[in-house]
């Protein structure tokens, strides 16, 4: 039968990527001075599993690399060799090479042949060092076993891909075949001989009913495996010996040892692909004896040729049942579904709007149906959105390696801590956040964390700490990169900004000064390193974050450390909002920023000369954001006590937004204003309301921050 192995490639690729990641994590966590056996076992198993799959699916390059890894790891876990940090480095690089090979087979990229060769060389050196240190007599035997195993794998792979096995060019080979006659019926023997005779010219050296052993010479261009296949059904594989007398191959490595040697002593070039233990429970010999059947030789083949019909019938069922716990769906399909649900939400809102105008007494059942529709729509929307959600550990998991490599390069001691890896966010954001975050981590390590000597002088521990933290806050996810390094130097940044011709204002707050490092062409590193670039990166980081609808903030204390926070929307598609009216315009305020709404009394409102109004709410004075002023609208009333104040909180600051009226709470589908029109200050997007009108979604955080600036002045 021909089962197309390609259908399993994708799952193998995915599995291997996971195993590689797991292996890397274990390697990074490995304590070189006292390695945990469990860790070593886990690393070994990962390499072993990849090798097994790679062999099965015919990815020989990966098989060879993982085989070298596996061999070394096996000795490490057995305690035959001490773990050294150079080894860990080499293993990590080997992991990279395998990743490259994997990408190559996937069709996006390829392994760097130079790096591959270097890693091979390195691994080989380690294994040679082992042999040198193990001054035992069986050194060569071990080596032979290893190379034989590699060869065996290679030849099997060739077989699997349809090429003639063992020899790539099917030259004529003389095989000597020896086996025990025990339990072989005369008829089976005849069958066998005619099968073998069909493969080439067969010479019977010893073939007897009395003798317990038979010896044959077969001159054939078939492979050793084919002979095995023909024989394995008839004779006990444990007592079967096949050896090539003359190999017409030019490859010196494939020369087989003297065929007269004991089978067990020297491993065969290509060991038996399978076999049974005589006398073991339910071994085929027993079965055959019990059944006492005549059809021994052909039975396997006959069944094989009869099942394609059954196979076709069952293919479907098998494919469906194959993956029970998860299914792979293209992201396009998911997005299409999200869009459709978005439309459904709008339609539902439209219906709700219409239904709200009918007499609730007469149309009671319609209205209760509408309520149910709303609940179901919301549930559906939530579950659809959750399909795209992934834990941020997908991104965080790559940084231990980045930090390790970079710290070694810069001679710094750094520990990376991650907090909140299970925080989920949209898959699209996960993919986009990785690069900016990498840049920030590298930047923290390069510019933030000091070299150990400096840290000790400053009274800190020699080892610096970088903390990656993710958490939900309102409708956003916050990702922080904190370091306990030198912190930002205000004077230095200002001087550099002046030098670069960046416009500066008098009396800039620290926050504003820190944000200067995100200006294009800014770099404060005294020596430009190849690590965190030339200051071209930070402005790109800021742009990337902004394009995701997020914002970036810096907190820093000189000598203590720096914290860079990225605030991203949870998802880009849907928002819970309060609709408010100003004049004949409707705006959407994201619900997550709203604390409360209230109708102020005239006495609560104070005017600060030249700086607008403040309102006293529960003993606190809050700046008033007058929407009609910002958007230049004509409101029903300009008197604040005639309207409504919506109290907002964003980024630790509060403000009161003055509107004419509250209309209702909606779930809205965000449509980008930027891609359909252009960016507008104070507006983060737009949506289509139930009645078909467009409403703008307010960029609440920006409005609150603007009001703060206003009131500070």
């Amino acid at each position, binding site marked *: 039968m021909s089962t197309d*192995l390609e259908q399993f490639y994708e799952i193998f690729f995915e599995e291997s990527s996971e195993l590689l990641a797991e292996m890397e994590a274990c390697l990074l966590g490995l304590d070189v001075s006292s390695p945990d056996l469990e860790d070593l076992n886990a690393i070994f198993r990962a390499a*072993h599993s990849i090798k097994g799959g790679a062999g099965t*699916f015919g990815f020989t390059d990966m098989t060879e690399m993982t085989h070298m890894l596996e061999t070394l790891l096996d000795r490490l876990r057995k305690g035959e060799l001490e773990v050294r940090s150079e080894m860990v480095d080499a293993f990590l690089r080997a992991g990279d090479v395998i990743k490259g090979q994997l990408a190559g087979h996937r069709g996006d990229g390829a392994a760097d042949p130079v790096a591959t060769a270097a890693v091979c060389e390195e691994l080989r050196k380690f294994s040679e060092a082992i042999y040198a240190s193990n001054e035992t007599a069986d050194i060569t035997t071990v080596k032979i076993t290893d190379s034989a195993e590699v060869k065996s794998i290679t030849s099997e792979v060739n077989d699997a891909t349809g090429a003639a096995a063992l020899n790539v060019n099917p030259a004529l080979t003389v095989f000597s075949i020896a086996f025990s006659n025990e339990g072989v019926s005369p008829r089976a023997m005849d069958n066998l001989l005619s099968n073998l005779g069909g493969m080439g010219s067969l010479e019977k050296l010893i073939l007897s009913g009395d003798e317990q052993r038979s010896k044959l010479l077969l001159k054939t261009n078939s492979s050793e495996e084919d002979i095995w296949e023909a024989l394995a059904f008839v004779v006990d594989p444990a007592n079967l010996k096949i050896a090539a007398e003359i190999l017409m191959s030019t490859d010196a490595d494939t020369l087989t040892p003297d065929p007269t040697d004991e089978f067990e002593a020297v491993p065969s070039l290509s060991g038996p692909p399978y076999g049974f233990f005589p006398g073991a*429970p339910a071994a085929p010999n027993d079965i055959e004896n019990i059944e006492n059947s005549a059809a021994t030789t052909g039975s396997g083949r006959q069944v094989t040729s009869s099942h394609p019909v059954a196979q076709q019938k069952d293919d479907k069922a098998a494919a469906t049942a194959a993956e029970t716990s998860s299914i792979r769906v293209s992201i396009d399909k998911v997005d299409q579904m999200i869009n459709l649900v978005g439309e459904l939400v709008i339609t539902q809102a439209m219906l709700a709007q219409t239904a709200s105008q009918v007499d609730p007494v007469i149309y009671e059942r319609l209205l209760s149906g509408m309520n149910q529709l709303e609940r179901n729509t919301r549930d559906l929307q939530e579950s659809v959105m959750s399909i795209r959600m992934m834990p941020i550990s997908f991104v965080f998991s790559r940084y231990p390696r980045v930090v390790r490599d970079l710290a070694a390069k810069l001679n710094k001691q750094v520990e990376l801590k991650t907090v909140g890896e299970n925080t989920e966010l949209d898959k699209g954001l996960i993919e986009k956040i990785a690069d900016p975050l990498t840049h920030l981590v590298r930047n923290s390590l390069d510019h933030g964390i000091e070299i150990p000597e400096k840290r000790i002088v400053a009274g800190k521990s020699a080892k610096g700490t970088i903390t990656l933290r993710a958490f939900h806050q309102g409708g956003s996810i916050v990702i922080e990169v904190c370091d306990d390094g030198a912190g930002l130097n205000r004077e230095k940044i200002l001087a550099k900004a002046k030098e670069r011709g960046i416009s500066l204002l008098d009396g800039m707050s620290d926050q504003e000064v820190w944000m200067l490092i995100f200006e294009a062409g800014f770099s404060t590193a005294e020596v430009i390193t190849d690590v965190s670039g030339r200051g071209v990166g930070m402005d790109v980081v800021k742009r990337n974050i902004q394009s995701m609808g997020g914002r970036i903030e810096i907190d820093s204390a000189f000598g203590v450390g720096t914290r860079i926070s990225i605030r991203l929307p949870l998802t880009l598609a849907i928002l819970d909002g309060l609709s408010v009216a100003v004049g004949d315009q409707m705006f959407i305020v994201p619900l997550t920023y709203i604390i409360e709404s209230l109708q102020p009394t005239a006495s609560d409102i104070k005017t600060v000369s030249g700086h607008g109004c403040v309102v006293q709410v529960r003993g606190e004075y809050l700046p008033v954001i007058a929407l009609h002023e910002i958007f230049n609208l004509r409101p029903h009333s300009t008197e604040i006590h005639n309207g409504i104040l919506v109290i907002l909180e964003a980024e630790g600051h509060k403000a009161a937004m003055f509107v004419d009226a509250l209309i209702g709470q909606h779930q809205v589908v965000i449509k980008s204003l930027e891609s359909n029109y252009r960016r507008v200050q104070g507006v983060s997007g737009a949506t289509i309301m139930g009645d078909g009108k467009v409403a703008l979604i307010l960029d609440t955080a920006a409005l609150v921050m603007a009001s703060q600036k206003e009131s500070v002045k």
Partner: protein
Amino acid sequence: MTKTILAVDDSASMRQMVAFTLKGAGYEVIEAVDGQDALDKANHYKVNLVLTDINMPRMDGLKLLEMLRQLADYKSIPILMLTTESSNDIKAQGKAAGATGWLVKPFDPKRLLEVVHKVIG
């Protein structure tokens, strides 16, 4: 009667390949991700053949073999080791643990079916 095969491997791709091949040939296949899982499942199903990987987390194939052979239902059913190690050492360990035979990885679907047919028809 459809015969049931318990396929044990921690690698999902291998498991799928084995399951797909065997199901295609009309067998019922129960998959287990490691020795412990296999042992749990072995108690719940009537199995005609066990195919087990050797290197697995939680419980490896050799331990699984030993445990299965202690169960009355599994005393005499065939158990094959699927192993990348074709060394005699592993074979000896497998035999001692009660394995019926071995199949060296990597193998292709054709070879797998051959062996399975050979053992349970």
